């Protein structure tokens, strides 16, 4: 059984069709890259997986470990192990990063019927991960993403991912707005989280990120569905030839 199974997914926003019969399977331990031109529905897929309101699924299903998640709220999905690293992380003034992480972790544990994590354990998890990601104590004390640079916000997403230890991590254009040094730090943080129990879906427009997060499989999306699947060399081919060849497909 695949960890993530998307079958014939049709999604509309305000009556406009965005996903058009998308099929996708991601296996446990796999890192799957999703590439595609602007407007192909990559970010919509990410949001639908995480359960963002406003996206209407008109047909098809999304299953995590064989269980449909479409009726679940975003918080329930998170507790089941879905994590979305946002393309544009949101600022949360007045809520310290540390408090936020702890609230999120304990909320998930509560939903799963687990006890709250102890303060020393929690501090240790955060401190270890933060140091790898170059996140200072000062940043942890500051309000979530407030006054953070683009790179700091992306690193903070990876920190959250590391603390929450998801089953399925979806990274939506994590490379956008990052310079090469920041990209390396973020990719390194992601690579540390690769594990046989976890699957990752790495959404990107460019091949560059995949030099650092090397995928097991590459899917190409166009016009709301997966039109081609291949190995990591497919990313290089796309970089060389562009997306033009997929413009006519799935029309």
């Amino acid at each position, binding site marked *: 059984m695949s960890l993530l199974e998307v079958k014939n997914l049709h999604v509309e926003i305000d009556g406009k069709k965005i996903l058009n019969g998308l099929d996708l399977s991601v296996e446990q331990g796999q890192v799957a890259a999703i590439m595609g031109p602007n407007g192909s529905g990559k970010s919509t897929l990410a949001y639908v997986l995480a359960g963002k309101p406003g996206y209407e699924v008109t047909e098809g299903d999304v299953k995590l470990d064989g269980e449909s998640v479409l009726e679940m*709220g975003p918080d329930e999905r998170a507790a089941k192990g879905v994590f979305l690293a946002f393309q544009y992380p949101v600022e*949360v*003034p*007045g809520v310290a990063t540390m408090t*936020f992480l702890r609230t*999120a972790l304990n909320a*998930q544990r509560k*939903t799963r019927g687990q006890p709250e994590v102890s303060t020393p354990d929690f501090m240790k998890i955060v401190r270890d991960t933060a140091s790898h990601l170059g996140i200072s104590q000062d940043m942890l004390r500051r309000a979530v993403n407030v006054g953070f640079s683009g790179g700091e916000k992306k690193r903070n997403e990876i920190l959250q991912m590391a603390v929450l230890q998801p089953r399925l991590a979806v990274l939506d254009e994590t490379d956008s707005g990052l310079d090469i040094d920041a990209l390396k730090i973020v990719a390194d943080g992601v690579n540390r989280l690769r594990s046989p129990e976890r699957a990752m879906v790495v959404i990107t427009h460019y091949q560059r990120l995949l030099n650092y997060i090397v995928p097991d499989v590459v899917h190409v999306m166009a016009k709301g569905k997966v039109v081609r699947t291949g190995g990591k060399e497919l990313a290089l081919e796309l970089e060389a030839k562009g997306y033009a060849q997929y413009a006519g497909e799935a029309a």
Partner: protein
Amino acid sequence: MNAEIHAMKTPAEQALSAAYEGARATLPGKGGIASLRADAFRQFEIRGLPHRRVEEWKYTDLRALMRDAYPIAPPPDAAAKARAKKAADILAGVECRRLVFVDGVFVPELSDLAPEVGLTIGSLAEALANSGKLGDALAAEHVGKTFATDDAAVALNTALMGDGAVIRIAKGAEIKRPIHLVFAAGTDKPSSVFIRSLVVVGEGAKATIIEDHDSGNAQVNTALELSVGDEAQVEYFKLTRARALHVASLLASIGARAVFNSFAFTSEASVVRNQNFIRFAGEGTHGGIRGVNLLRGKEHVDTTLLIEHAAGHCESRELFKSVLDDSAHGVFQGKIVVKPHAQKTDAKMMTRALLLSDEAEADNKPELEIFADDVVCGHGATTSAPDEGLKFYLMSRGIHEKEAEALLIQAFIGEAIEEISNETIREALMFAARKWLGAGG
């Protein structure tokens, strides 16, 4: 002249006239102070209680809101003092110098009067009573002179002012602990309280002043005159809780190259009007005028600012945030005036209301009056429902819907509270806000 006096007095206006006539002989201060009171009361009688056709009071019609004026509160007895002592303190965890006023009257035995170099503390009633004598010219010098206004609520306050704090901070003094003026309710009976405080901060001095009102069931009219000397640094807070009617006026004059930050925090407020008259009187001063209002039920809070840039090269930032639930009503009127010679003024005003219910109402009225030609001034106002994008972000991390909603309200007001530099006060206010959110059920 008679034509200006409106003939039909409301019951509240009649009661106020009777209160003034009855108290005139016993109110503190003779001579100059007595005539100041008489003039002020005449001013008030000419105007009457402000109502909706008075532009500055358009949204807070006191003539309609005050069905009656309660009798002036008697001096607090032992029971009143005991009750005031037990009252909840938002700043309990903050190391402060507490000065306690019960039903508007200074209570030395509940106050921390430990001597400190550069700090003089007194009661206004005493200062006014002694103002004719040598040695306490402060009251006579300052009362009513910090910021001249013809506002009716200020006039009524001047006519009937009973007691309040008189604080003087010497030139260059750095007062370590915040001075926490606790205005507590002692009596539960409907009564009215008229408080007037004077704070004079000398050149280069540093201090934090907190005006903390829990007005209970009283009708409170309070005013604070704040004079900030050149190069002084003042952090001023006003915390307000009121179950009846609370009208507060800040009359402030800020000197040159000073730093002045104010923060108003209002919760559990039946009808509150916070009016701020602030003049930047010297060049090169930085000011931050901010606040948060948390309202539910039928609560009504009106924040009215008159920020006068009378000198050039000053920067002012105004930011007010209101959270409105049920059928609460939030009002923001902000006027920035830049005088002709106040070149290089940089003023930015922003007000945001978060509506948690369809019945809640926010009125925003920003105004700019600019007479100088080389300035940067701007204002903005937004009124919106909770941010769904932010809510999704929080929920996508596993946080349940209710907690996510509470966090996003916290985030909304956090933008203003984050600006408070004193960490313990900032945390105490954030904690009070969370408590308010929790109480919403």
